[in-house]
C-alpha cells in the first residue's frame, strides 16, 4: 500500500462530471507529474484532493495515513500533512504574511492557543523564515505585506513554495506552479522544491506544460484527458508530450508555454 492512494476518484462541479475515475498511488520520496490539456480535469483534481467546497465528490476514496481524507475538512487534511500550492493564490487583505505563516505553522503543530510548548518561538520562526527566504531569492520586505496583496505573479508562486517550505508537508500538490512565471522564478521555485525532495516528501506536480519538469525531474508522468488517465510512465512520457503535445488525444494545441517577460 502506497503512502498516498487515490482510488477511482470521481468528482463534479455544478452537476457536471469532471473526474471520471482517477487512480494514483504516490509514495513519499517520489515526484509524480499529472499533465493534461485544458479542461481535462487537472484543477478539479487538485481542488478535490484538498477539499474545496465547490467540488462534489461522486465516488472513490483518497487514503492517507489510514484515513479517507475526502471525509475531512481542508484544515484537517493540511494538519495531516497535505499541502496545495495554488495556481491562483488568494488575496486576504489586512493580514500580514508573517502573521499568516506563523498562524499556519502553529496550526500545523497543533497549537490551539493553550499548550504553549507547541507554539513556535519567535527565534525559531525567524531563523526558519530567513533560510527559506534566501533559497527563494525573496527579501524581508515581503513579510509585512498582506497575504498575496499586490504580489506579482512570480512573488505569489514563490510565496506558495515558501509556505510549503515552512509547513513541511508529506504530500505536496503543486497546481500549475509554473504558469505565469518567468524563467528565473521557475528556477528559484524548482531549486526550493528540489531541496525539499527526499524520503519524507511525496510531490504531485499538476501542469499543462513540460517546462517545469526540466527543472523538477519527475519519477512518473501521467496524462489526464477528459477526467481519466490515458497514459502513465516514466520521464519519457513528458519527452513524448514535448514533441507531439496532446494531439494523439484529439487536442491540437501546441505544447509551448506562453511567453512571460
Amino acid at each position, binding site marked *: 500500500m502506497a503512502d498516498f492512494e487515490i482510488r477511482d476518484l470521481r468528482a463534479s462541479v455544478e452537476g457536471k462530471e469532471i473526474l471520471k475515475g482517477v487512480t494514483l498511488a504516490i509514495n513519499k520520496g517520489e515526484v509524480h507529474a499529472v499533465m493534461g490539456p485544458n479542461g481535462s480535469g487537472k484543477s478539479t483534481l487538485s481542488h478535490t484532493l484538498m477539499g474545496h467546497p465547490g467540488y462534489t465528490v461522486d465516488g472513490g476514496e483518497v487514503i492517507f495515513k489510514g484515513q479517507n481524507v475526502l471525509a475531512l475538512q481542508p*484544515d484537517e487534511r493540511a494538519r495531516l500533512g497535505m499541502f496545495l500550492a495554488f495556481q491562483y493564490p*488568494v488575496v486576504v487583505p*489586512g*493580514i500580514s504574511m508573517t*502573521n499568516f505563516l506563523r498562524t499556519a505553522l502553529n*496550526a*500545523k503543530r497543533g497549537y490551539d492557543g493553550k499548550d504553549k510548548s507547541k507554539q513556535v518561538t519567535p527565534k525559531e520562526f525567524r531563523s526558519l523564515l530567513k533560510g527559506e527566504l534566501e533559497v527563494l531569492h525573496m527579501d524581508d520586505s515581503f513579510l509585512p505585506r*498582506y497575504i498575496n496583496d499586490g504580489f506579482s505573479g512570480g512573488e505569489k508562486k514563490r510565496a506558495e513554495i515558501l*509556505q510549503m517550505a515552512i*509547513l513541511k508537508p508529506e504530500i505536496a500538490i503543486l497546481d500549475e506552479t509554473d504558469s505565469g512565471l518567468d524563467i528565473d522564478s521557475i528556477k528559484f521555485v524548482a531549486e526550493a522544491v528540489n531541496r525539499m525532495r527526499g524520503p519524507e516528501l511525496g510531490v504531485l506536480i499538476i501542469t499543462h506544460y513540460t517546462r517545469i519538469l526540466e527543472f523538477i525531474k519527475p519519477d512518473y508522468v501521467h496524462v489526464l484527458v477528459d477526467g481519466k488517465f490515458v497514459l502513465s510512465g516514466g520521464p519519457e512520457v513528458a519527452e513524448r508530450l514535448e514533441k507531439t503535445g496532446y494531439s494523439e488525444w484529439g487536442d491540437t494545441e501546441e505544447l509551448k508555454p506562453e511567453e512571460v517577460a
Partner: protein
Amino acid sequence: MATVPKVDVGTDYKEKYGFFVPEEYVFKAKRGLNPDIVKEISWMKQEPEWMTKFRLRSLEIFRKKPMPNWGADLSVIDFENIFYYLKASDKQSKSWEDLPPDIKATYDRLGVPEAERKFLAGVSAQYESEVVYHSLQEELTKKGVIFTDTDSALRDHPDLFKEYFGTVIPPADNKFSALNSAVWSGGSFIYVPKDVRVEIPLQAYFRINAENMGQFERTLIICDEGSFVHYIEGCTAPIYTTDSLHSAVVEIIVKRGARCRYTTIQNWSTNVFNLVTKRAMAYADATMEWVDGNLGSQITMKYPSVYLMEPGAKGDVLSVAFAGKGQHQDAGGKMIHVAPNTTSTITSKSISKAGGRTSYRGHIKMYPDAKNSKSFVKCDALLLDDESRSDTYPYNDVDAENVTLGHEATVSKVSDEQLFYLMSRGITRNEAETMIVNGFIEPFTKELPLEYAVELNRLIQLEMEGSVG
C-alpha cells in the same frame, strides 16, 4: 491569616491623591425623571444656580422633543424605570457574584486582572491606578493642561467651563442630548493651552473615580490654538451595567491649527441602548479625528460629527461596528462644511454576524460658502452569514460650487475562496474567519495604540467564537 495593614490617608487625601471617599449622604436613589429629581441631582453636586437652571430647561426640552422616527427602534425604552443618578456608594453595592455568567466568563478569557474586572463591572472603583494618575497629573499641570472629571471642572474652573459647555451640542439638538443635559454626571474635561502638545494619550482609565463610566457622562474638550491631544475612552472588556440606557454627550472645540483625536472602544453588555451625541467644531486649519469602535450593546446610535467652521479645517471619522445576534449598530458620521477649502473623510467598517444588523448612516452637508471643499465617504460591510443584514443611508446636501464629493460602498461576504485558502494551510474555519474579520478592520486597528489593537483583535476572536454576549 495575613492582616492587611491599614493605611492612614489623612484628611488631605483629596488634594494628595485626587480621589474622593464617598460621603454618606442621606439620599435614596429613585427611579424616573421629574424636576424634583433633577434639582436633587444638582443640589447633591452643589452646583451653581446656572447649571441647575440649565438642567431644568433641558428637562423641559427633553419632554417636548419627540423620539427620533428614524434609525433603530427605541420604543421599548421606559424612561420612568431608570435611575438617573446613583452615588458611587450605591453603584458599588453590587457584588461580583451578581454579574451575569457570560460577562464573568469574558473577563476570564480576556485575562482582565481582578481589580480591573470589578471596576469594569461597576463593582468597585479601581484605586490602584491612582498612583499612575497622580504622576501624570503633575506632568500635565506643569504644562497648564487640565484633565479632570467634568463635575470637578465645573467646580474648579467655572469660567472656562461656562464659556464652552453646551456650545457645541445645545440641549435642543436632539431628545437624548436634552436628556443628558438634564441629568449628566461624570465624563472627562480637558483643556489644552495654546501650542501645547500632549504626547501621551489621555485615558479616562487613568482618571479613576466611580463616576467616570456613568450612564449620562458629559465630556468637554477644548484644544487651544496649535495644540494637540489624543483622548481615549473605554476599553475592550465588556462594560456591565444593570441600567439599560447609556446616553452620553461629547463636545469638542478644536481651535486654529490644533489637532484632536478622540478614540473610543466600547463594548457594552447586550442589554444596553447606547445613544451618544458626539460633535466637534474645527476652526481654521484645525484637524478633528474620531476613531470610534462599537461592539456590544443591544442598539447603538452614534454619528460623530465635525463642523468645519473655517478655511482649512479637516475632519475624519473612522469607525467600526460589530453586530452579533439580536444587536443593531446604527452608526456613521456627519461632516458639516461651513467654510471654503475644508476637507473630510468618513470610513466606516461594519461586520454583521448571526442575524445582527449594521447600518451606516452619514450626512455630508456643504453650505454655499464651502467652495473648494472635499469629502470622501467609504463604507464597507462584511456579512458573515445569510441571516445578517447591512444597510447604507448616505445623505448628501451640497449647496456649494466647485466641491468634490465621493462615496464608495461595498458589501461583501467572507469568501469561500479566502476561507479555503487559509484552511488549506491547517487553520481552522473559525480561526480563518476571525483572521478575515481582523484583516477587514485592520485599517481601523492600525490607528489604535498597540495594546488596544491587541485587545480588539482578541475580542473579535471571542465574538467570532460566539462566546461573548
